[in-house]
């Protein structure tokens, strides 16, 4: 724990803790370590916590006096903690990159001067890191897009981006967990559900997990979609330590 943090009340019931304004894996790890320490120590005061790239927000119960909690939080950050190694998943996410699934992939390839197989290779090569979930229920903010695929957002956002759309916007890539409006370029679609209200935890991803996109053909897409529908598709994954 070596970052210089700021602590500020954010409304009457929340404290916002900010790390240096960078998108960085070490910051993400430090946020999660501190979050675990806080949840361990102050669980009776805390309603819920949300992390983002370089911040952690703590929502407290209505009767908590948030400004009184800042000083004990600062002490907790510098207090020695157990150096627990956290376990994370590396998930293999099947994606069909055929133009009927990714309506913008041909346009993107043309604009960047690459062939379709080159775009697919560039998008499937990285091991993407999940920084946090936000924007939409189950939407993962991923780090690791090949900068050669970075592109400006659509000038006019689509009214309905389909569920499962794998897309690129700016220097980010992500998966739309449900149909929603959106301005990113759609390059493929995954048959997996990234948000499931019937699961014990609605999103199988957590911050710190990694994603690998695996190209599949149309037939495989429909096979996985059918298995997923009857709840018998197990997402391939392996574990890693931070």
């Amino acid at each position, binding site marked *: 724990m070596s970052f210089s943090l700021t602590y*500020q*009340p*954010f*409304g*009457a019931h*929340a404290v*916002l803790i*900010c790390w240096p*304004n*960078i*998108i960085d894996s070490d910051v993400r790890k430090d946020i999660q370590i501190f979050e675990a320490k806080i949840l361990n120590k102050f669980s009776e005061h805390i*309603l*819920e*916590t*949300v*992390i*983002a*790239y*370089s*911040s952690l*927000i703590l*929502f407290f119960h209505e009767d908590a006096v948030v*400004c009184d909690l800042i000083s004990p939080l600062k002490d907790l950050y510098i207090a020695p903690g157990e150096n627990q190694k956290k376990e994370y998943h590396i998930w293999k996410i099947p994606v069909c990159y055929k133009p009927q699934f990714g309506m913008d992939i041909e346009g993107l390839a043309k604009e960047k001067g690459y062939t379709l197989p080159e775009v697919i290779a560039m998008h499937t090569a990285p091991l993407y890191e999940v920084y*946090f*979930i*936000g*924007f*939409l*229920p*189950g*939407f993962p*903010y991923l780090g690791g897009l090949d900068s050669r695929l970075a592109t400006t957002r659509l000038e006019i956002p689509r009214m309905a981006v389909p569920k499962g759309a794998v897309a690129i916007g700016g220097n980010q890539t992500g998966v739309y967990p*449900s*149909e*929603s409006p959106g301005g990113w370029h759609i390059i493929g679609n995954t048959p997996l559900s990234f*948000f499931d*209200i019937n699961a014990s*935890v*609605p*999103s199988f991803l957590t911050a710190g997990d990694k994603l690998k996109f695996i190209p599949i053909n149309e037939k495989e897409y429909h096979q996985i979609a059918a298995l997923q529908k009857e709840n018998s598709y197990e997402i391939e994954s392996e574990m890693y330590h931070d």
Partner: protein
Amino acid sequence: MIEVIAAGMFTTIQDSGRYGYRKWGVPLSGVMDQRSARLANHLVNNTNDEAIMEITMTAPILKFNVDTVIAITGAGFSPSVNGQKISMNKAVQIPKGSVIKFGKPSYGVRAYLSALGGFSVPKILDSYSFYPNITENFHIKKGNILSINTSEIPTTDLANSSVKISKAHFESPIITVDKGPEFNLLSRGVREKLLHQSFEISNDSNRMGYRLSAAENIAAAEIITSSVQPGTVQLTPSGQIIILMRDCQTTGGYARILQLTDEAINILAQKRAGESVRFVLRKLPF
């Protein structure tokens, strides 16, 4: 059973909110005007967490095929039962077969209808609040049949309970705020404009957020995506002011310049397009 004869503009079922799921990007949701909704639940002896009907701008027509007790609070929609005007902010006995209609709101925009025992809708992710892709229904439609939890019809003292409400809740243009995380990054000139000028609420305002009319020479740079919450006032690089409301996203990339108090969210929730509001900084207790 309650039959929806007409749905109204945007009628939903809400509770106090879907807590515990924001880490997965799930909006908090819940009633827009908590003060009015809590009152409606109290009047019929329900807890704060009971599912309640939120009515917006144009009200539904409801046929009650059940004996119950209801209370209507919030915006002044002039409710009637079988053509007879009934009081708001009061527990009212509803005999089976009654049809409840409403007029146009003479003050406020959102009314709350509580029923003894609460509305019986599926609890999804620990909440009854409607939200697209989470609950099956996003809003109530004509022909829907709503159930209420069965409960003993109470004694007369409940049916007589009523309260007087303050009109300031619906008429005050003052929106009390705290400084937001990026407030201190604004120039002095922008801060002064923000706190000394009135802003008009634009048409594009709903449960996700209220947009204010564009003001000149006010803008803020984007930030690295970070947490927001209901009541967060965002300022975009093009000068748009957006006040996030109960169905807002969990994170956002615009500067968070102010944060509404809980009561200010309730007051704003009763305002309509064209009304003016003014931000006033709350004196902090430290």
